[in-house]
């Protein structure tokens, strides 16, 4: 970022209430004004002012996953500062400085990549800064740098007892040439990494002062809400806005080609105005679309061959000579993200510039989207990043920024566009629907000798990152279906990209694995049942070449009391996976009532995610992802009728609630391997564990989600 851009970023940040600068300022660092812009900025992540302020710039946005604690831990470990000495700042849009190396350089927070991507470079960023500060002190004292060391924001010269704070060295350090790389600490010397450090964003999130995108209030802001064509691809045919305009507080109606927005003094008036609009829609080509139609198309597609994602041995031959054959089809529904902060974006379009206030997982793309709609060069668009009230992949998309800017172009002054919950759910971009066919062959001892898996569904990567889609394949669609931890002698996996008409698809917590791990781990359970073997023992026998997977499975089973007797109607189910760079096994204990309703009572997880940066965050993310997956397993389904999404709010798109949430135990396997991702694995692992537990409890195999209690009813159902 240029100095000018940075100053402008800071200034506008302060003018609008400080945003993060205010909300995340730690008490020990004093004032709340934007500052800390010092002379010493050896890289894009560390700035130290002569006033002693240490500012760390966060390349990945905080949306609950704890990145605003874990990333500072990486930097602080090498910079030799304590976490209560640092101030955090959101990174501005700049792919050159903040592009994610694991997402093709896109400035993206997603795919559980932040720690994997940051592990080396952000420790380097801290170490380089510390090396320069030591060099500056050594020069001033005329001693060798090796005779000095850094500690808690100071450089010390133990031989003479002298010390200088980083702030006093900042100006000198800034004049020194910046090394490309310096030696990093030996992990045995870590003081911060590996400790359950407290979340830096927590204090502001318990007293209401944390500022999310929806809380942006630039001076003079108006509030807008909108109705978009209820059928994707439809248009506004006619509009009668007389009654809406008469609502007190309504200022303006903005009619777009496929949406209408009501601009008002407050959301209450905007919603009232929206309800008073009479809109006649032209539903367009998808007016009759149904979910069944989409499912049938996918099913049909899997009758033909797809792109080969992985092939080992000769699966056809092994199937032909197998002692037993098992076949099944599986399907998974569309899902909405339903982050609790509804979609929103605040935009101020002027002739010569544009400001955007939003929480986004793709800051640079969001900036570019606003620039495109506003017809302005990139450098005229200032993006103010915010905390996100739940991302789950929804904010990897820029449709909300585009829509808000389209509306803001017609409004004089800043306008905050807030989606109602109904608009948020009915105009989401959905976790894809998938249809799978599987065949397996078992030998006379029940061991799998052939595994054949073919599936069809949308490729999100093909749209989101087109170069990532090659020869009919993309890495996400097949993640969790190939490179299984299991040793299978003959295995063949094919994928068919089939885009549903009229339903936009997008990433969703765990995306590809949320589908593939469900199918693989459910089918593996079917094989164990066919072989009349214990599901854990059956898997362990296939994991000889994957010791980390074997270890987490053994640990989870032991901690869960696998094999111990359970009352009638209660069952345990298991899953194990290696996705997002981490190994995770889960055991779910599920109770199925006579009326078929399902309660997940207890979940035991064992994880090997390599070196752990913050063990409490690892636990928190597994707890979170597990409950997210249980919500999907028990309730998650978006259906389409007459081209319209049928669900609209939390009454028809249910969330797991506190009285239904299981106890969750997380056991971490100590590891010296490089860190893996933790934001998503729990979601993909839990769904098959729950389905397998339901099988154990009832003997009924669930080959589609969500759970249908009617299917599980027994006896008189009471």
């Amino acid at each position: 970022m240029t100095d000018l851009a940075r100053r402008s970023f800071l200034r506008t940040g302060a003018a609008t209430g400080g945003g993060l600068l205010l909300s995340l300022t730690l008490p020990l660092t004093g004032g709340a004004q934007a500052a800390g812009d010092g002379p010493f900025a050896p890289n894009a992540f560390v700035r130290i002012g002569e006033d002693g302020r240490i500012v760390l710039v966060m390349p990945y946005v905080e949306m609950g996953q704890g990145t605003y604690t874990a990333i500072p831990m990486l930097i602080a470990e090498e910079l030799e500062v304590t976490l209560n000495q640092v101030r955090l700042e959101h990174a501005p849009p700049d792919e050159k400085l903040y592009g994610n190396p694991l997402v093709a350089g896109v400035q993206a927070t997603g795919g559980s990549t932040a720690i994997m991507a940051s592990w080396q470079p952000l420790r380097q960023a801290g170490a380089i800064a510390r090396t320069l500060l030591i060099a500056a002190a050594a020069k001033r004292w005329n001693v060798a740098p090796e005779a000095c060391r850094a500690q808690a924001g100071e450089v010390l010269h133990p031989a003479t007892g002298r010390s200088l704070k980083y702030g006093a060295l900042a100006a000198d350090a800034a004049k020194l040439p910046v090394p490309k790389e310096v030696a990093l600490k030996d992990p045995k010397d870590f003081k911060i990494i590996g400790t359950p450090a407290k979340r830096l964003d927590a204090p502001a999130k318990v007293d209401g002062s944390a500022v999310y995108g929806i809380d942006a209030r630039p001076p003079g802001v108006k509030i807008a809400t909108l109705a978009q064509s209820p059928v994707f691809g439809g248009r506004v045919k006619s509009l009668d806005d007389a009654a809406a305009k008469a609502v007190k507080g309504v200022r303006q109606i903005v009619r777009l080609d496929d949406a209408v927005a009501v601009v008002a003094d407050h959301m209450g008036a905007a919603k009232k105005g929206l309800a008073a609009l009479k809109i006649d829609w032209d539903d367009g080509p998808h007016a009759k679309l149904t979910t069944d139609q989409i499912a049938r198309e996918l099913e049909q597609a899997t009758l033909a061959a797809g792109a080969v994602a992985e092939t080992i041995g000769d699966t056809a031959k092994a199937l032909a000579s197998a002692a037993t054959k098992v076949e099944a089809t599986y399907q998974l529904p569309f899902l909405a993200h339903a982050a609790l902060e509804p979609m929103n974006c605040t935009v101020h379009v002027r002739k010569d510039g544009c400001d955007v206030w939003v929480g986004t997982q793709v800051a640079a793309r969001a900036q570019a989207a606003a620039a495109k709609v506003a017809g302005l060069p990139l450098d005229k668009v200032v993006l103010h990043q915010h905390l996100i009230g739940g991302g789950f992949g929804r904010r990897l998309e820029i449709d909300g920024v585009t829509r808000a800017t389209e509306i803001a172009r017609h409004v004089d002054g800043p306008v905050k566009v807030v989606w109602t919950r109904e608009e948020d759910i009915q105009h989401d971009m959905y976790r894809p629907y998938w249809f799978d066919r599987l065949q397996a062959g078992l030998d006379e001892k029940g061991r799998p000798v052939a595994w054949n898996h073919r599936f069809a569904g949308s490729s999100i990567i093909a749209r989101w990152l087109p170069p990532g889609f090659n020869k009919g394949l993309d890495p996400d669609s097949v993640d969790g279906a190939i490179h299984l931890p299991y040793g299978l002698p003959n295995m063949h996996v094919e994928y068919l990209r089939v885009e549903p008409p009229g339903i936009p698809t997008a990433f969703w917590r765990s995306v590809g694995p949320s589908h593939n791990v469900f199918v693989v781990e459910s089918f593996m359970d079917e094989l164990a049942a066919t072989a009349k073997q214990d599901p854990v023992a059956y898997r362990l026998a296939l994991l000889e070449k994957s010791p980390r997977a074997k270890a987490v499975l053994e640990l989870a089973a032991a901690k869960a009391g696998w094999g111990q007797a359970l009352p009638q109607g209660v069952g345990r189910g298991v899953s194990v996976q290696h996705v997002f760079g981490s190994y995770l096994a889960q055991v779910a204990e599920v109770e199925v009532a006579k009326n078929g309703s399902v309660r997940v009572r207890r979940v035991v997880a064992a994880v090997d995610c390599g070196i752990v940066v913050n063990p409490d965050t690892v636990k928190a993310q597994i707890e979170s992802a597990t409950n997210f997956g249980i919500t999907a397993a028990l309730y998650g389904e978006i259906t389409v009728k007459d081209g319209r999404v049928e669900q609209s709010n939390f009454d028809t798109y249910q969330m797991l609630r506190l009285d239904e949430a299981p106890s969750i135990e997380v056991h971490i396997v100590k590891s010296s391997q490089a860190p893996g991702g933790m934001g998503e694995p729990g979601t993909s692992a839990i769904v098959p564990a729950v389905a397998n537990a339901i099988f154990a409890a009832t003997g009924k195999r669930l080959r589609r989600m969500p759970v249908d209690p009617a299917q599980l009813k027994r006896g008189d159902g009471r």
Partner: protein
Amino acid sequence: MAFNVKINGKQHSVDVDEDTPLLWVLRDVLGLTGTKFGCGMALCGACTVHVDGVATRSCVTPVNALQGSEVTTIEAVGKTVAGARVQKAWLDHEVVQCGYCQSGQIMSAAALLASTPKPTDADIDGAMSGNVCRCGTYGRIREAIKQAAQSGSKGG
């Protein structure tokens, strides 16, 4: 017309329609953005405030129903004994993740403890099941409420 509402001990006069939900008066008219919008139908609890000490969904509470009432929001709940204990317990247990629902969770929990100083698990279920947490922090919420109740019984 103008309505008088007393929020966090201060009288405000707001000129909005009588059926305007309190949520928008707080967030958009008065700039108290700690109270969150989640559903608009009292289905998620993100907008929970206290009206005369009772946990209330502000998204369905019209402003004209508040004449003579005292409204407390997340910005001021820390000044109440139960609110301060709940906030501390939330920090001790590292409850928050995205944090968006937590204002509402804390308001519901503080109202529970104010009326039921030693809640059972069933009391906690009853008071907290109207609050959705999409990050699934439920286990920690339960533990934090128990700690806050414990600290209350110790007189702390």
